[in-house]
């Protein structure tokens, strides 16, 4: 069975300026252990698509129709209490801006243990620090036992994004949604984070939905790609095929923006 199967999803924003169809009839499927990229320009609806999966669409946005079936369960119809178990438990998400995605008043340890204790009842307060250190070393943070006592403002952007990844992986999710996780980082750190996500994907066998505007990143990490424009999927397929034989005009334009080395 397909791990995640999105069918004809529509997320609309009823604003004073009129109805904005941010996601307008999108189909997307994700198999176990696969990295799928969703690529598109600003305003193409890719982030709203990602937020729709966890039903985190900000006001006044609403999922008006469609189905998001995870392991056969339709997330759109799931009650809030059940949905909370999926969020961060089965499907985790990391965000674009690592500088503001951590709560500034708590230590790293505090925040990662929270993520562990929320979803995994086999850990208690005494076992959590060990697991926290383990997660931090898995995402490549040197000296994790010392670093986990730090507050977010004491870490660099790349380190914070690693912490965010560790937090997202705390519950061993089936799916990781990464919403432009490298956009706010500089190029060398970008490459490290991409490599980390790709290697963790193989190691943990999870599926990844990678949201980005950068076709260069798609080529580096993804197996399949969906190209989004104006809330619709204009083209999809294996990364190699789309790169070599783009069919849609918009895809061709996006590909033309990738610098040739």
């Amino acid at each position, binding site marked *: 069975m397909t791990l995640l199967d999105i069918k004809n999803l529509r997320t609309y924003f009823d604003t004073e300026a009129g109805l904005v169809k941010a996601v307008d009839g999108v189909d997307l499927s994700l198999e176990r252990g696969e990295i799928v990229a969703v690529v598109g320009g600003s305003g193409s609806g890719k982030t709203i698509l990602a937020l729709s999966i966890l039903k985190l669409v900000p006001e006044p946005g609403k999922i008006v129709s469609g189905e998001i079936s995870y392991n056969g369960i339709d997330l759109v119809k799931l009650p809030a209490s059940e949905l*909370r178990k999926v969020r961060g438990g089965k499907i*985790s998400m990391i965000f674009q801006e690592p500088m503001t995605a951590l*709560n500034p008043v708590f230590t790293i340890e505090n925040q990662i243990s*929270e993520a562990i204790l929320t979803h995994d009842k086999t850990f208690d307060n005494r076992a959590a620090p060990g697991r926290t250190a383990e997660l931090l070393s898995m995402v490549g943070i040197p000296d994790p036992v010392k670093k986990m006592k730090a507050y977010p403002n004491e870490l660099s952007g790349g380190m914070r994004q690693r912490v965010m990844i560790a937090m997202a992986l705390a519950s061993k999710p089936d799916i990781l949604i990464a919403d432009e996780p490298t956009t706010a980082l500089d190029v060398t750190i970008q490459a490290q984070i991409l490599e980390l996500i790709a290697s963790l994907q193989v190691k943990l066998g999870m599926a990844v939905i990678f949201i980005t505007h950068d076709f260069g990143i798609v080529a580096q990490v993804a197996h399949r790609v969906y190209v989004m424009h104006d809330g619709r999927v204009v083209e999809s397929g294996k990364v190699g095929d789309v790169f070599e034989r783009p069919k849609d005009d918009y895809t061709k334009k996006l590909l033309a923006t990738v610098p040739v080395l």
Partner: protein
Amino acid sequence: MVWHQLKRNKLALTGLAVIVLLFIVAIFAPMIAPYNPNAYDLDSVLKAPSLAHLFGTDDQGRDVFSRIVFGARISLSVGFVAVSIYITIGIILGAIAGYYGGWIDIALSRLIEVVICFPTFFLILAILAFVGPSIYNIMIVIGLTGWTGVARLIRGEFLRLKSVDFVSAAKASGASDFRIIFRHLLPNSLAPVLVSASFGVAAAILVESSLSFLGFGVPPYVSSWGGILSESREYMDVAWWLTITPGLAIFLTITAYNLLGEGLRDAIDPRMR
């Protein structure tokens, strides 16, 4: 971080020192006061300050210094309890309004505006006229009328923080509303409340002194600064110490809290760095 900033502000530190000193005085009042504050001594009525009576005596021969020392208990406890009550109410209502938004926010915001419209001091006078003057009633009434400022602060901070990334991240990781409010939103919005509390304690002490001065405060046999000041009116031209000493005590306390409040405000304001 706030403490580091505050340390460089001499005035705020002085305020803090005065407040700490006042607390020590209030807690150890029975040991510090040389006389029973309510002991009449008709042989020494309206005596000027001397070594035996540091701040002199009043018209019934009671030691003014001892009365002021015990009065610190009333002032500080009214200030603290009243402000604690209204901060609690303000946080709860402000948090609900800011977090849930929509019609709940509209209803609570209108309620805040209605309560702000009442002239607080006269409302307190009116309520105390019904329920009778006592220190507990003063605390409760100030607490029930003073929460609007805190509620507005918390509501504003919640509205701002609600869309900050770490709150979205917490939601995405399956945190409940309760957890988001108490772990992620509240700790990040308490700093302005701290400032408001410092000013609030000063205001509450002033209200209590004013009420006692007008005779609506604590009963006359309990020594409070406003009460001493009130009794001194008749003897102002013969016994200056009766007016000056409680007046100075009120002035010093209010100033100390206001200086601390201003220091805290500057310390948490990033534009001041």
